[in-house]
């Protein structure tokens, strides 16, 4: 039985600069949460960008549910259920909260009834978004924008969620809330790849984790192993 998402020997670079990823391999099973840790510039966000198809890889293979998707364009990956929650939230600031959510469900636009059901589900998870559904997304606070970003991804009915630093720039209460939501999503059966600077929080939440350094995986193991790993403690847990 192969993993839901499998990455083998991934190499990638921006323009003609030196490669940022130098042979990354990792796997994500059904219902699993894997944390990706590492310093700034280690290549964490790049991994997600390659997985969602925004950056082509130079070498390597990405398989999703047994299917080779290495060369698949981003919108088709979303349709398959591989959905990214981008770093810095990336609101469509001039559209309302509801329009942002609807765009998240664009790949399922023909299925109006189901889309409405998903919308209710998202409003169930984030009641505050329902209150503010007519408000422009750009006028929301950072925490509420992060909820819109998560909700927008959920509208695509993902099987794998790629989360890029969901706690970035959020107040402590909000950070807690966002991590709570991620924990809940995972209980619903989603597989999640979580990139986080907040290493401790991420490991607490994860089943397994990998540590990247200069584009290679230096440590991989269960959450417990990461917690006790000398390298992780020294470099990321302070």
């Amino acid at each position, binding site marked *: 039985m192969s993993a839901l998402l499998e990455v083998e020997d991934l190499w990638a670079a*921006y*323009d*003609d*600069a030196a490669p940022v990823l130098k042979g990354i391999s990792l796997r994500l099973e059904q219902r699993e949460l894997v944390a990706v*840790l*590492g*310093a*700034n*510039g280690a290549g964490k*966000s790049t991994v997600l960008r390659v997985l969602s198809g925004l950056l082509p890889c130079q070498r390597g293979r990405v398989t999703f549910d047994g299917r080779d998707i290495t060369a698949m364009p981003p919108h088709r990956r979303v349709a398959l259920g591989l959905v990214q929650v981008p*770093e*810095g939230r990336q609101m469509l600031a001039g559209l309302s909260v509801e329009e942002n959510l609807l765009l998240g469900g664009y790949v399922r636009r023909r299925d109006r009834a189901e889309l409405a059901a998903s919308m209710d589900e998202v409003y169930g998870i984030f009641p505050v978004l329902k209150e503010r559904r007519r408000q422009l997304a750009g*006028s*929301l*606070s*950072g*925490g*509420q924008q992060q909820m819109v970003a998560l909700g927008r991804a959920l509208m695509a009915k993902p099987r794998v969620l790629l989360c890029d*630093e969901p706690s*970035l*720039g*959020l*107040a*402590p*209460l*909000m*950070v*807690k809330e966002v991590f709570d939501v991620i924990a809940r999503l995972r209980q619903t059966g989603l597989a999640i790849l979580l990139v986080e*600077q907040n*290493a401790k929080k991420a490991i607490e939440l994860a089943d397994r984790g990998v540590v990247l350094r200069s584009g290679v995986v230096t440590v991989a193991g269960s959450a417990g192993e990461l917690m006790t790993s000398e390298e992780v403690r020294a*470099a*990321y*847990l*302070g």
Partner: protein
Amino acid sequence: MVAALLLKAGWLYSDVIITTGIFFILVMGLDLLYGYAGQLSFGHIGFFAIGAYTVAILAKFAGFSFVGGLLAALVLNVALGFVLGRIFLRLSGSYFMLGTLAFGIMVHAVITVWSPITGGDAGLGGIPRPVLGLLPPDVEFGVIVWIVALILFWLALNLAQSRVGRAMLAVRSDEVSAACSGVNVARLKTNIFAVSAGFASISGSLFGAFNGAVHPDTFSLKALLDVLLMLFFGGEGTIWGGLLGATLMRALPDLSGPLHAGKILFSGVLFTVIIFAFPRGVAGAIAGLIARRARGRKSEAPPSFAPPQAAPRASGTSDTVLEIQNAGRSFGGLRAVDAVSFNVARGQIKSLIGPNGAGKSTLLNLVSGVQRLDDGRIVFEGHDLAERRSDEIARLGIQRTFQHERLFTRLSVIENVMVGCEGGSDGSAIDLLRCALALPQTLRDEARVRDEAARWLAVIGLAERADEPVAVLPHGLRKLVEVARAVAARPGLLLLDETAAGLNDVEKSSFKALIRQLQSAGVTVLLIEHDMEFVMELSDAVVVVDFGRRIAEGTPGEVRRDQAVLTAYLGA
């Protein structure tokens, strides 16, 4: 066969060489304005026409020589450019283009209709050429054109590669953060508009003399399309790209022979192909190749590493650096900042915390002049900041970073920091002149600033990546470059908006050390951050805001125990 062609059309090729020089001058001016300052003008064909007609009219009615006419046209066009620049540059983006287009059309209409003076449809003849009598007349005029073109090329290139060039690219990247780095955006843009009008004027006067006559048709929208093609084919943002563009556009109709008839169609097709094949023009593609090779080389470490000077350039004597008194600001019905008062003491590290949307970033925007105060007062070192622009505030000694980093994407990592070191540019005519003439002092400053910026990059651990474009850096490192840009200006007060977000624990502790180092050098710091461990450990004092109001203030210990803070922000 080529030789036969050259022989057959020898006289024509000298014409091509002359007009290439003339249009090169026009395109250089446009490149300064668009390729550097980011303002695409469709109206410069108007300045070009005025340059030609002024020489013709003054020769006919007042007996002016060519040189007299050229200088009169230059004065007229630069003055006109200055006035129109002030008006048009209030418009943004496409409205600016439409405004300038209207100007170009108006000039064309005036020269067509005002027949007693301009000769109307018949045009005006008898334009004198400059004569020195040293060479055969035809050759001499070509030599004069190229001497003028090369002098202007030298000036434009100096300007583009100087602090003013960096300031212009900063403006093109992000006007708000350019202003916060000390660039007088409005004045710089206006002056560059006037300079480019001057280039167009000289080019037009030479063009009039070359033809010996002026005629409205030469200055129509068709001519505008040709000039834009030269700019984009050559490659904007390089200055020398204009030479490639002008050469191609002047030589092509003669080389293409039969295609000449369908020139407009041909130009249209060419334009489309260029935009797809060379999005940055031929010169842009070549420059890209050179940069790639340079990036491949290992950059050398700065010769002697010494920590850069961080002490504020100027500092007052009172205990309070910043006083915020009853500051208020609304957006629509939302009271984002509501009667907030607090002080920041000299040498203090003060943190501003509160829930997302509480008004923290708006407060920093009010202090840095990015947004205007509705009511209340903000005083920095005795100066009331209410009526001051961001660049004036920067020059008083306040620097900042942004919550969502606003680096200059058109500049490399080190050039971003250099803009900080030199405090941008006041955009004055004097500054422009000093840079265009490449005075020895200017060159020495350039070397000193580059060296200083390199040392700042070493401090944040990015010396190796100095020449890379900022876009390839990951989020967290871009924020550190923004800090380097701010502290390189040696501010008295440094405003940091969530700089540590996106750094991991190890990176955070070296960032903490950097802030402490700045503090001991005499810098006062006001920062926004959500990481409570970071805030509590670093701060001398903390202000808490919620719903635009100050709800608590005190030492980290006091704030941590405050009931209101616990409910609103920290969580029990």
